[in-house]
């Protein structure tokens, strides 16, 4: 029987795809899986789980939250980086706490907020800009660790220091003689971080008011360019599951953790060093401290007295 060429062609395509599916879609991954059962590979293939007393307490590759049910940091633990993971809509795989979905492995995600995301939406169903998130985290960590939490472009009350300036625009888009100035992220009745701007009194922002017509002017302020709270502590990771923090952020937390656990700070610093990894081969990646392993080790060696 002679089939038209185009049918023969598509039948060949179908058979080819089925053969490839068996070879590359089943045999190949299963072969990798089989070899991965060898000692030395097996732990990694299974998810690098940390076992303690016969119980799994996580994976050394997947970060965890060390906060209470209300999201406040548990002081006996080193804190992880901010996480932007999301909930899972799949039944049985939802994040354990619907109000705090950080470090949820069934919903890995980044914030995806851009470098000029500086304007909050105020009000009850509002949202924080990336700048305000950074400022608020820095302020909270500063207070928790007892250091200066100020940052450039942040107000003392921990939101983005951004003005909306109204008035006629020059050719470069700037407002030279403002008629009205609003501190965009400080909802009334907050006291604006600047009293006046170009001679005009700065107002607080009324939630719900549309400020789009004003020119956006972030204000640098006098905070040091190299803040005490490290960069990784105030920014969310790409996966939301980052198990690491920078050595600087770990050292910043050492005193508080030592105090809460009632051990000399040297012991905690030693634990940090034991869980610190330098760059791979001296030049790949960054030095880092594994928070999950560090906290687990502290719980084993210096349990918190109830």
């Amino acid at each position, binding site marked *: 029987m002679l089939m038209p060429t185009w049918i023969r062609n598509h039948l060949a*395509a179908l058979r080819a795809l089925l053969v490839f599916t068996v070879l590359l879609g089943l045999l190949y991954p299963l072969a990798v899986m089989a070899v991965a059962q060898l000692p030395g590979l097996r732990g990694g293939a299974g998810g690098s789980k940390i076992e303690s007393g016969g119980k799994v307490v996580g994976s050394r590759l997947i970060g965890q939250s060390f906060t209470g049910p209300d999201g406040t940091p548990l002081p006996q633990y080193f804190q992880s980086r901010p996480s932007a993971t999301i909930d899972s809509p799949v039944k049985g795989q939802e994040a354990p706490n619907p109000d705090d979905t950080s470090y949820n492995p069934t919903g890995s*995600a980044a914030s995806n907020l851009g470098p000029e995301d500086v304007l909050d939406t105020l009000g009850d169903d509002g949202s924080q800009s990336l700048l305000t998130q950074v400022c608020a985290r820095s302020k909270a960590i500063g207070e928790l660790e007892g250091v200066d939490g100020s940052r450039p472009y942040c107000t003392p009350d921990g939101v983005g220091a951004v003005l909306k300036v109204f008035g006629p625009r020059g050719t470069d888009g700037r407002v030279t003689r403002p008629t009205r100035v609003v501190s965009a992220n400080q909802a009334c009745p907050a006291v604006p971080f600047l009293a006046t701007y170009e001679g005009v009194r700065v107002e607080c922002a009324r939630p719900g008011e549309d400020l789009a017509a004003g020119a956006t002017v972030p204000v640098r302020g006098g905070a040091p360019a190299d803040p005490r709270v490290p960069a990784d502590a105030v920014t969310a*990771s790409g996966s939301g599951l980052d198990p690491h923090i920078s050595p600087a952020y770990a050292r910043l937390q050492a005193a508080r953790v030592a105090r809460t656990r009632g051990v000399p700070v040297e012991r905690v610093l030693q634990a940090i060093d034991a869980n610190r990894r330098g760059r791979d081969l001296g030049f790949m990646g960054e030095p880092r401290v594994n928070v999950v392993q560090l906290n687990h080790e502290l719980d084993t060696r210096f349990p918190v007295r109830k």
Partner: protein
Amino acid sequence: MNGTLAGVVFFGSLVLALAVVYRPLGDYMYRVYTDPGHWRIERLLYRLVGVRPDAEQTWGAYARSVLAFSAISILLLYAFQRVQQYLPLNLGFDPVKPDQAWNTAVSFVTNTNWQSYAGEQTMGHLVQMAGLAVQNFVSAAVGMAIAIVLVRGFARRGSGHLGNFWVDLVRGALRILLPIAFVGALVLVAGGVVQNLASPDTVGTVAGGTQHLTGGPVASQEAIKELGTNGGGFYNANSAHPFENPTPWTNWLEIFLLLMIPFALTRTFGRIVGQLRQGYAIAAVMGILAVVSISLTMTFQLMHQGTVPEAVGAATEGTEARFGVANSAVFAASTTLTSTGAVNSFHDSYTALGGMMPLVNMMLGEVAPGGVGAGLYGMLILAVITVFVAGLMVGRTPEYLGKKIGSREIKYASLYFLVTPALVLAGTAVAMATESGRAAMLNSGPHGLSEVLYAFTSASNNNGSAFAGVTVNTVWYDTALGLCMVLGRFLPIILVLGLAGSLARQGGTHVSAGTLPTHRPQFVGMVTGVTVILVALTFLPALALGPLAEGLH
């Protein structure tokens, strides 16, 4: 060692490693595509498929086979996702909804691997490994086959035949991709990439809470995802996820894997046309563009300009602590210089100019070094356009590799070049003109436009990375971007095959004193210039409204 220096050494070590494998891998691929014999398993395979491996095809027949295989692939992958609830290892997931299943099927078959879904919430293990990952192999093998056909077009004299698609496809997948992927997967497992069939496992945490730890056949998919310049992550966070990319050295390895074949193919090209230096010239153009682009991306990211990066003190938003800013930037540039689109950090949160670089890399047409195969044929098209431009300047009929570039050839080449800019600019314009198009933006102002522009650039160039804040899991975007991916892949492929057919039919010309030498630095500089100028003329207005408006104020 300070961070910047470590970043430079990281980049330098990649260049060195690529130089080391360039010759053996390029020569190996040459032998694969020119071997007159067949392996026993291949003979069996051809019998099962029902094709005669020694029957060569014309360009038209070759194109029909490519299109038939791709059409069947899209259809089956679509069906696979739609019935996953009845299949084993589905993890309790619902069928993928129709528009998303279409988008994903097209995305993986076109080697784009754009993802409007989150892997860990949508795709069961079976769909991932027996559906999506199979396309990772075969879509890459199709790309390599097309490149080899174009090279044969230059190499053959007075021939109507260009090879056999089924043979090129099988050899690319089994002899090149499979062995390297297998070794790569095992090395990744050694680094901590998971490889199992487990469902999410609820475990206690250190602080006494619970966590659902995910599993999956990740390593086997990760290796081919990079090697085949596919880029579709097993998980939503892609190569930022610690189970896909657990350490700085696996990060290095993944970048190496995604660059190795596209660069080495220029050696294969040189071998097939019988002039190694022609291959070196093409590799030099790719290398220059890549080094400049990666250096700029790293510089912009380390300078961390912009309000939020300056408040933070570094461009760390969306990056992993173990990789850091510099190595993330190298990944971001490499994944967009090729057609990979995997990400180890989130480009949407990059500085304005740092985030513009991935966009520009894709707009270059992904030719430095480009996707597996697609990069080589894209760059050869640019070389053809360059000899044409040079021919116009001196008033001679342009030639390349002993073939006349006449009106038919230049029509194929210029149509090829016009396809993706037309899709990108028209697509973005339509999106900005419609309510559903604009609704997708997460960020406001110029950055919102950048998100949409990036989406259409990525889809039309078959990259797959994103300014991921954009909400593309909608009927509108799934459909529009799906169309961009199909047209952006197969129109250029048909044009390349047509060009190859037209070249192969010609006899050869003789080299004379008036022939433009195409292996000298002069030609390398000209191709580089033509590439950059064409792209700048096409896309500068769009870039001025997006990343440039954001970054230069």
